[in-house]
């Protein structure tokens, strides 16, 4: 009796320590995004109970595929929103990129790989114009990207006079449809890699910290020797490049290019970033939070579809969720401040 605790002690201790290590690891990943993550878990549990077929592996993979485009766009938007800006043009720039891809490879007769590079480059170029409009001509980001939203949509329609383009080579559409190891498509892999890069840059590079500083206080950042204008321009370029990459994913998934692609998508993107805990006032936001926000939006669309909820009611529900997510965040902050 007296020996038992002594001999069991170290081993039990070890188990506890490794468990504590695991808890620590999870806590580290979820640092600052616990609230949205809890929301995601609750949402998944509710859907698994009520929505038929929701919890089947094939559907879960399906959700990931459905959020790839949104996820890539939200990555760029996170950087923009952390600097205190906003990008309303992502949906339109995304459509312009997808049309450039189809138009160059079909009507223009160019090799598809060149069209793919052009697709991303056009996105980046539109982002550069946004960035310069904000930093050089000093337009408010809302106005600069509102203008680009209209211009890019118009250009997307002009490429083919509003027609859609269908039929890509097999290797191209298999990027989104061939699953390695039973679930991992190339496009999904790209999403994961982009998130890891985005997370590492914002957390571990001085350029990432500069993004936060610009959003926190441009004047403090400037005095600290940060090139505020360059950082601001760059985040819009990144958002544009993300739109170009997302365009490739979309064309591959649908095996077509449509000039009406991504209409209203900018609002889903902003919603995902904000649900993930970023503040439109700037200086606050995390890649992990955005990922959770994207998944919340994706799970909600998917689950509500499975439940047979009408698309109109879905819009109402998503609106309520956005307001609720930000409201709980406001409540939490108020509580922290008074404590």
């Amino acid at each position, binding site marked *: 009796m007296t020996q038992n605790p002594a001999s069991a002690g170290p081993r039990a201790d070890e188990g506890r320590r490794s468990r504590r290590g695991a808890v620590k690891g999870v806590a580290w990943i979820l640092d600052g995004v616990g609230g949205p993550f809890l929301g995601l878990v609750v949402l998944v549990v509710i859907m698994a109970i009520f929505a038929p077929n929701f919890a089947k592996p094939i559907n879960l993979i399906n959700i990931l595929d459905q959020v790839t485009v949104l996820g890539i766009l939200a990555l760029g938007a996170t950087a923009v929103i952390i600097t205190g800006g906003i990008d309303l043009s992502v949906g339109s720039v995304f459509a312009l990129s997808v049309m450039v891809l189809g138009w160059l490879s079909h009507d223009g007769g160019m090799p598809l790989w060149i069209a793919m590079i052009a697709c991303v480059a056009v996105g980046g170029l539109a982002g550069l114009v946004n960035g310069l409009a904000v930093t050089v001509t000093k337009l408010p980001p809302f106005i600069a990207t509102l203008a680009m939203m209209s211009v890019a949509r118009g250009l997307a329609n002009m490429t083919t006079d509003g027609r859609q383009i269908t039929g890509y080579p097999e290797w191209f559409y298999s990027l989104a449809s061939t699953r390695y190891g039973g679930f991992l498509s190339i496009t999904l892999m790209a999403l994961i890699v982009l998130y890891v890069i985005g997370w590492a840059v914002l*957390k*571990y*590079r*001085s350029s*990432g*910290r*500069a993004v*936060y*500083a610009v959003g*926190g*206080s441009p*004047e*403090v*950042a*400037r*005095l*600290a*020797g*940060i*090139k505020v204008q360059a950082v601001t321009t760059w985040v819009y370029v990144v958002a544009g490049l993300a739109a170009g990459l997302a365009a490739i994913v979309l064309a591959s998934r649908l095996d077509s290019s449509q000039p009406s692609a991504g209409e209203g998508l900018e609002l889903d993107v902003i919603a995902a970033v904000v649900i993930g805990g970023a503040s439109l006032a700037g*200086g*606050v936001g995390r890649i992990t939070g955005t990922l959770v926000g994207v998944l919340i939006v994706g799970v909600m669309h998917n689950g509500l579809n499975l439940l047979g909820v009408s698309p109109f009611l879905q819009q109402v529900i998503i609106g309520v969720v956005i307001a609720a997510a930000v409201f709980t965040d406001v409540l939490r902050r108020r509580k922290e401040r008074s*404590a």
Partner: protein
Amino acid sequence: MNEPAPSPILTVRGISKSYPGTVALRGIDLEVRPGEVIALLGENGAGKSTLSGIIAGAIQPSTGTMTWQGRPYSPATPRDSITRGIGMIHQEMRLLPDLTVAENVAVGRWPTRAGFLSGKTMLRQAQEQLRKVGFTGRVNQPVRELSVAGQQQVEIAKALMLDASLLILDEPTAALGETETTALLECVRSLRTQGVSFIYVSHRLAEIAQIADRVVVLRDGEKVAEHDSGGISPDTLVREMVGRSVDRLFPEFDAPRDEVVLSVEGISDRAGRFDDISLTVRAGEVLGIAGIVGAGRTELVRSIASLEPLRCGEIKVDGVPLPPNDPIAAKAVGVVLIPEDRKRQGVILSDTIEDNIALPNLAAITRYGFVTPSGVTRFARKAAARFGIKGDIGDPVATLSGGNQQKVVLSKWLSSDPKVIILDEPTRGIDVGARASIYEVISELAQQGKAIIVVSSDLEEVLGLAHRIMVLAQGRNKGIMEAAEATADRVMAYATQ
């Protein structure tokens, strides 16, 4: 003292306020009589803001009672206190910058006729209040165009419009120069004769001596002293505030070395805010720059730190010319400016202490292209220890006292070991104890051979710190004098000539 005192307009009995973990106020008693100016003194964190906030209805006390004009008074919101005639004028102005002076004065009590705004009545009423506070500007200009002092007068007029009979002024002169301060004190005096009472929160002992009928000293949430007139020796007040005697506020400075570190030759501003300024600062020397608000001091030092473009002239550090309007180059050769507006330019309030300290030092923290959180923590911990920052370095800067925030700003800039250090209003809004420790830091830096420029509206500070003093007026150098021959009167004479 022995004549029968009029009955108090406000009484405060046993007011306490505790927050989870701390007690901010402990059993405070206070009486304010009509037409009386009560000075509220204390270090940051002593409870002045909490007490003012409770009287103004912004904070609810944990225990205790108040009466106002003889009736029980327990305001639940600032609106409750305003409607009863208690106005609080905050340190940060709360005016609508694009509305006119008259519109701002009338905000919240727009005179109407038959349901429509009556512009004429509004103008007349606003003018009446503005006259009481000695406002001399135009009533139809936007508030944005006014000086800080002008805006303050508008704030007071606004409170008077709401029939305020007690005004709480929270560090009203923190952003004012000598002449503007005099004007404000004049305004307080004239309102007092009209029966308005004041609770006057300030760090400036000289002002308090001029204006206060009674002085109440708070320390650590308790009332430690109450004096029946303003004419108490500053030493006594400082001792009561700090809880120990601060024998000397200003440390000793060694004589500067011979080599010139910074030389400025005939620089002029593009917008004409300063013109043809030349100066030199030697290693280990402190150059003070005095002058009234608006004399171009901040613009001048910002240009010296290469934050603004120049029309002409040259700045040299160790004999090497510095390109204008290039903060990154200035940082590289070792010129740093510690800006006057701590909250807007010095720190990102919502960020942690460590992130703020790391920001200008990211290049030094980066290893193999990466900035790791542990690297940031290590760097910040060292800096925090060197400058005596209190609190956990993971706390947001917004939760710190003013003095502690200023130490964060200092450690942020001084960790890179610069050659030229420019401090613009280094102790604005900072209490005596913290001020002494910032002076100590400046003295150490001088001993290490740094070239230092201190810009300050506080004459005592310039006189106490500087080896030489340059006086700026209307953007021109009115003369540089040695500390030994400088007096407050001489400096003011130069500044206002």
